[in-house]
């Protein structure tokens, strides 16, 4: 049949023809399900990247075949004899989170389609919808394969449940819920496409895979590069919409607000997670391998901020230069990623993955890449290693290692780890802590029905039981673990462990080892304080750190 299929209609004609499909309804119009405060009355026609389903489906099918071929090959080639446990354990967290943002992106597409009246962009968004179904299920399948073939399936086996009830899952869940809820353009265009996809998928889908490969896992790169290859179309969808939004001056204030919120929240959440996976989940300590900070500088600062965002200034976009610089400042000078990794490790008893102690070789690498690292974090990691096996002592969070358990940020839900940046404020009749002024602003100013004197009736709300510890205020640690279901199939050994040693049952922590440790909620305690106590607490907290040390203690 080659002759028959050889002749193809010209691309331009095809695309013009496909534009004939939509029409202006006169009997009834699509229901306004998802409100927005943006206006697109004056939006110019903007053609995003064109997509014809006739070529799209076979193209993706071919990509799939390569992915499935690689999966078969990995299993037959015994890939898991070479993967690093330190790396795979973090995949229990990462792969529990990421299918949800993917599927949320699919669900976000009608928000954008409904908000933007121009049919030219609708096709691209519809194709993105099914792309995202692809991404979500292909990633679930990868995780399923890990569960089946990796030495320790515990944590993979409870994956979606654990994602739902763990503090870390909730942090990650913003990167997903933020796409589908609230003002349609804030959610589906600015937060999802302009920031999450355009800026942060670079670290997610490019930096993560290369680190995976360095740790013996070449399946994650295969799957995520296949996912990433759909991303340029999505970025183009978002770009068309933001240009259309910029054409109407009434949108500019909202764009400025949303970009500040979305940038900062993405930084707080994605850099926390991916930064930790890449820096603390790797065994690759070659001095010339790129650190997360270096990758960030290249992908996010240079490629995204300077080459993508800044050129939009001439169309009237207010770029949050200060927040880009401050994100870098947090990563480079304030140890953001190290503080987060230390917190994850402190919280190991309520995780559903194991965290490997750092060794001398790791110390050396950190000191090389982040000069001054040892003075801030070295001692604590030595303690972590010392306390890794149960031996009559408690988990590290309950031992005196000069680590003050942090308060959560009400907005980004990552704890307030950079102690000097803590902000305490009373919002909605509750004392809340924030990791930064921008997170306070997000809650108190941005996510409100009024902004700078104008009505913003469509803007979303921050909801839910945002401080995880509140759920378990003063519960016994072992009861919390049981309630979470983070227990292995013998009914007593924990899924989380602060080490990689599966060879000796005596080295594995059990529920019994965690009995007798009450776990209080910092936020409840904060709200029980008198005004004076609260002020003293804040002063003391802000004088603490780095590495979580108490104020006045070296």
């Amino acid at each position, binding site marked *: 049949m080659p002759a028959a299929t050889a002749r193809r209609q010209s691309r331009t004609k095809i695309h013009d023809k496909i534009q004939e499909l939509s029409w202006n309804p006169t009997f009834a119009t699509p229901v306004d399900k998802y409100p927005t405060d943006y206006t697109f009355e004056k939006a110019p026609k903007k053609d995003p990247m064109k997509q014809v389903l006739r070529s799209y489906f076979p193209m993706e099918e071919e990509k799939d075949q390569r992915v499935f071929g690689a999966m078969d090959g990995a299993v037959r080639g015994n890939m898991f004899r070479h993967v690093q446990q330190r790396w795979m354990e973090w995949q229990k967290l990462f792969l529990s989170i990421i299918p949800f943002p993917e599927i949320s992106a699919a669900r976000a597409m009608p928000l954008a389609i409904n908000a933007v009246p121009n049919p030219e962009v609708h096709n691209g968004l*519809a194709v993105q919808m099914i792309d995202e179904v692809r991404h979500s299920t292909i990633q679930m399948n990868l995780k399923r394969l890990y569960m089946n073939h990796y030495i320790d399936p515990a944590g993979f086996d409870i994956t979606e449940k654990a994602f739902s009830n763990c503090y870390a899952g909730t942090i990650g869940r913003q990167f997903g819920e933020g796409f589908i809820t609230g003002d349609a353009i804030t959610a589906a265009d600015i937060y999802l496409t302009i920031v999450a996809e355009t800026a942060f998928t670079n670290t997610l889908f490019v930096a993560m895979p290369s680190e995976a490969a*360095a740790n013996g896992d070449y399946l994650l790169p295969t799957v995520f590069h296949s996912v990433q290859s759909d991303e340029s179309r999505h970025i183009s969808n978002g770009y068309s919409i933001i240009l259309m939004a910029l054409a109407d001056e009434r949108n500019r204030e909202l764009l400025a607000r949303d970009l500040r919120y979305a940038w900062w929240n993405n930084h707080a959440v994605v850099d926390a997670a991916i930064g930790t996976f890449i820096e603390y989940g790797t065994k690759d300590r070659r001095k010339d391998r790129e650190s997360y900070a270096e990758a960030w500088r290249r992908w996010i600062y240079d490629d995204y901020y300077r080459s993508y965002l800044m050129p939009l200034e001439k169309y009237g976009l207010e770029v949050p230069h200060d927040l880009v610089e401050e994100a870098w400042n947090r990563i480079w000078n304030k140890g953001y990623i190290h503080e987060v990794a230390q917190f994850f490790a402190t919280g190991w008893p309520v995780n559903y993955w194991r965290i490997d102690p750092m060794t001398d070789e790791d110390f050396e690498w950190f000191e090389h890449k982040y000069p001054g690292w040892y003075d801030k974090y070295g001692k604590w990691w030595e303690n972590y290693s010392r306390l890794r096996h149960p031996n009559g002592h408690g988990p590290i969070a309950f031992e005196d290692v000069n680590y003050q358990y942090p308060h959560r940020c009400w907005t980004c839900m990552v704890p307030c780890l950079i102690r000097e940046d803590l902000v305490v404020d009373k919002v909605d009749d509750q004392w809340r802590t924030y990791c930064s002024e921008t997170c306070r602003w997000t809650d108190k100013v941005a996510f409100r029905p009024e902004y700078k004197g104008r009505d913003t009736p469509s803007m*979303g709300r921050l909801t*839910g039981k945002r401080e995880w510890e509140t759920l378990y205020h003063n519960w016994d640690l072992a009861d919390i673990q049981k309630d979470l279901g983070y227990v292995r199939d013998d009914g007593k050994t924990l899924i989380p462990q602060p080490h990689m040693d599966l060879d000796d049952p005596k080295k594995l922590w059990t529920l019994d080892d965690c009995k007798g440790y009450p776990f209080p909620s910092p936020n409840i305690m904060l709200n029980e304080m008198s005004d004076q106590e609260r002020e003293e607490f804040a002063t003391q907290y802000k004088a603490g750190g780095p590495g979580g040390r108490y104020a006045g203690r070296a």
Partner: protein
Amino acid sequence: MADTLSPAQTPTQTPTGRVRSVPRLVFTDAEAGALEFPSSNSRSFNYFKPQRLKATMYEDVTVDVQPDPARYLTQNWVYGFAKAPGGYPTEWTAAKSSDWHWFRDPNQEWEQTIYKNNARLVRQVEQNIANARNEGAFERWSPGWSRIVAWHVGAWMHPEHGLGMHVFLPAQRDAPTNMINNAISVNSMHKLRIAQDLALFNLEASEARSDFDGKAHLEAWNDDPVWQPVRENAEKLTAIRDWLEAVVAANLAFEPLVGELFRGGYVMATAAANGDFVTPSIMGVAESDLERDLGYTKDLIGGLTSDQEHGRQNIELVGEWLSRWIPESLAAARSLAPVFSEAENSPVTFEDTLSRARERVRAILGELEIPTPKELDQ
């Protein structure tokens, strides 16, 4: 076990003597079965109950990916709408379920099935069109039939597109579980795909025949009185807020009464009599899509109408919806009556075709044990 070599400690010397900095494989023995310890054999997702004894691939990659405060989501949704809760509120449909998570897509759609099926179908359509072109099939159409393809078959691309883009695509945001939303998202792609196929077929015909007016479909859809009730029906479907009502109105009323009536009942039957073998092959693909889409729709509705707690109420509700939407679709169908006698060879009558369409609805509702609304016979 604990102290495996790191990639940095392994040799980086190449056989040529050139030193390259690359991570090297190290033996970690981290494969399944290397050790026995608690949960070392826990190799299935254990947080949901599979429909059968063992979870299918589809279930593994679909169930619980969209979390639910009624299951494990202890901190609840962390974003809300201005005036409504966030996430996936069950209130977005009037239907009720004692457990929305029971539903499984009978088509078991996930990444691999979606792309395999749709790629197969676009290839099939392209191949049929290519064969027709090579055999000069377009040129053999009579001028009268050619006008029908340009005008009526052309018009049909619009409802397919409208339903895909503005009925099913928004509905897949709204259902309370991932299983339901994914099934609806695949339905949306079927519609969009067939709409594009019809548009490109139309382009092909206009290139093959000088008398084929490639823009006629726009006039037919926007102005021809024969098509206005169909357009009205399609547009009204886009205005439904309740996601399940939209799916019911589209798949249980519009599709059998208008979609199948036109695609299968009219085009497929009439085209052959007029020497056209290619148009029916495209419509046939749409018909087989519908079988899949009806499959999930029937399972979904059937589960709700047989719900222990809310079954009776759901039967009534679906009945009300159908009483509202069947008359719309019957009116749309009736307006197409003149089309049935337009071709030189008209082997089927409108009344027979409409009776069959009604029977089809009756049969579907019978399967679901939903009383046939009296409006179907009016």
